[in-house]
């Protein structure tokens, strides 16, 4: 019997217990369901919970795990010899990933009561691995935002301080993992939307290399930047979940052909001799001093583990934010054109013509941030402005890619803060788009280059977590896992929003 509440355990710990048949999937899901009931009204991580179906699924998986068959000699053995990792483990999924038959909103009103008619490829993979969906988590509308305040439903509260934001746009997923409402979650990252909330909530978030994880079923924000990735309590869980979601998909033309890897093998390696570059441009103006302090302390730890650390420069980084706020809205303005009230979603009433239906539906259905970005994007693509804005931004993107390429010739990984500060107060930056956008300066360049990065906790300020970002070249998620795991072991961060208050 396990004494602790199951929600406090990591996915790996739960998985080990389940495969040893010391606990059942049903018990696990039941405990998570109880936890959700305890804290959800306060934290508000979920838009839709899937508890009844989850419990039914758990019972089914338990039949599979505990099913016995008779053998010679009148004995019984278990039918299933080997139980794969994460079998029977609950997982929460950000609400911009399609789940067949389950209400999917993208954090917006415009999808109305939309129930997708297909599962995203990652959902298929999760189902095939016998994981259990706990529900769909809250997010900034269409993934546009860094605080989850742009959700048309409600704002999620940071479990470390309920008056503060959890970050965004995957705020719901990050908060749910931090507070124990799920051991695992999927988020999406276009400009930092996995890493930034992971940092603000004191959990681990990884944005894979562009093309590693299928985008089929990921409701598009910016097609050349979006990726789905794990949000977990620790690096080991992250590696386990990445193993399941990574892989080529013939339904996604931008999905890469890459040999399958077991990312958990990198947990055994050490980092002596690792060459780490510290990004100068992200350790200067605009970054809070306490964040810089935490990052320097982290660098000391890396050095003590045998790595060598050196400051490096990526000169075109100072234009990254500008380029991103042209490219992402431009692609979004096109991706969001399909919301017209005809085949699904909200449809304005009392309209005289199809044009007025479009305008009314979209004006009623989209929030202000989405409208702003659609207009910005439309402007950047419009006749007369395309060259100066969109085309120029794509050229700046090339320069950023080249800068990273150059630096990775000499260094294995790079580090920087994940965010300039810890979680800010709810409402503090809401009406000020540019200030909000500036909280992404550390994470955005990574999406533009399409390379992978992970955020792990590296300190606290006023009991609010600080995140460290580790960046690797294309398809070197293994390096991220290795580096992050070694740090995590040494630093020993306590995931503590699980305090008695709840």
């Amino acid at each position: 019997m396990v004494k602790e509440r199951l929600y406090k355990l990591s996915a790996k710990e739960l998985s080990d217990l389940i495969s040893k048949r010391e606990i059942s999937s049903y018990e696990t899901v039941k405990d998570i369901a109880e936890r959700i009931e305890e804290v959800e009204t306060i934290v508000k991580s979920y838009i839709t919970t899937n508890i009844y179906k989850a419990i039914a699924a758990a019972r089914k998986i338990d039949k599979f795990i505990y099913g016995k068959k008779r053998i010679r000699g009148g004995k019984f053995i278990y039918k299933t010899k080997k139980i794969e990792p994460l079998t029977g483990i609950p997982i929460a999924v950000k609400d911009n990933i399609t789940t067949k038959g389950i209400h999917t909103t993208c954090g917006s009103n415009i999808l109305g009561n939309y129930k997708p008619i297909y599962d995203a490829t990652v959902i298929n993979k999760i189902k095939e691995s016998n994981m259990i969906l706990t529900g769909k988590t809250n997010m900034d509308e269409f993934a546009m935002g860094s605080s989850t305040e742009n959700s048309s439903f409600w704002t999620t509260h940071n479990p470390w301080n309920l008056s503060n934001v959890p970050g965004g746009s995957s705020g719901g997923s990050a908060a749910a993992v931090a507070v124990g409402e799920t051991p695992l979650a999927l988020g999406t990252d276009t400009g930092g939307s996995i890493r930034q909330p992971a940092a603000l909530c004191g959990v681990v978030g990884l944005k894979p290399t562009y093309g590693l994880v299928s985008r089929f079923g990921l409701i598009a924000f910016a097609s050349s930047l979006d990726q789905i990735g794990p949000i977990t309590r620790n690096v080991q869980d992250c590696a386990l979940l990445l193993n399941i979601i990574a892989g080529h998909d013939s339904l996604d033309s931008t999905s890469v052909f890459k040999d399958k890897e077991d990312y958990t093998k990198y947990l055994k390696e050490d980092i002596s001799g690792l060459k780490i570059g510290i990004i100068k441009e992200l350790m200067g103006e605009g970054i809070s001093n306490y964040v810089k302090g935490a990052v320097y302390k982290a660098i000391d730890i890396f050095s003590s583990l045998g790595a060598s650390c050196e400051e490096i420069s990526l000169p075109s980084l100072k234009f990254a934010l500008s380029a991103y706020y042209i490219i992402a809205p431009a692609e979004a303005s096109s991706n969001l054109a399909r919301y017209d009230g005809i085949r699904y979603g909200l449809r304005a009433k009392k309209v005289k013509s199809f044009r007025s239906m479009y305008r009314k539906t979209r004006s009623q259905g989209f929030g202000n941030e989405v409208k702003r970005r659609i207009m910005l994007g439309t402007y950047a693509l419009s006749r007369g402005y395309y060259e100066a804005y969109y085309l120029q931004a794509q050229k700046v993107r090339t320069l950023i890619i080249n800068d990273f390429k150059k630096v990775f010739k000499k260094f294995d990984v790079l580090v920087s803060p994940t965010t300039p500060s810890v979680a800010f107060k709810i409402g503090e930056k809401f009406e000020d788009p540019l200030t909000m956008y500036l909280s992404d300066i550390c994470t955005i360049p990574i999406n533009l280059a399409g390379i992978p990065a992970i955020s792990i906790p590296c300190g606290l300020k006023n009991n609010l977590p600080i995140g460290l970002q580790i960046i690797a070249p294309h398809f070197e998620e293994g390096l991220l896992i290795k580096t992050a795991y070694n740090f995590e072991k040494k630093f020993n961060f306590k995931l503590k929003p699980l305090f008695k208050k709840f």
Partner: protein
Amino acid sequence: MEEISKKDVKHVAKLAELDIREDELDKFVDQLNIVLKHAGRINEIDTTDVEPTSHVTNMVNIFRDDIVKKCISKKDALLNSPKTIEDLFEVPLITEE
């Protein structure tokens, strides 16, 4: 870089099929200008002889074979539609082609 005007915002809203109320217009113009000013900084950097990046992967020639897959049922196709008429997706009056 040019500033975006009220007229520009109205034009762009029209292109994007969005209605912006008069009382919201000024606020949007201001906000868009703040962001655009910052974004416009990309023109400070010299990009002569730099190729634009449209795709981050280096892949080319991804195709599928011309094989028919089972279609979804008519029921599923129409399932989420707010309004259907005789197995078709209803559209309010079309006034132009």
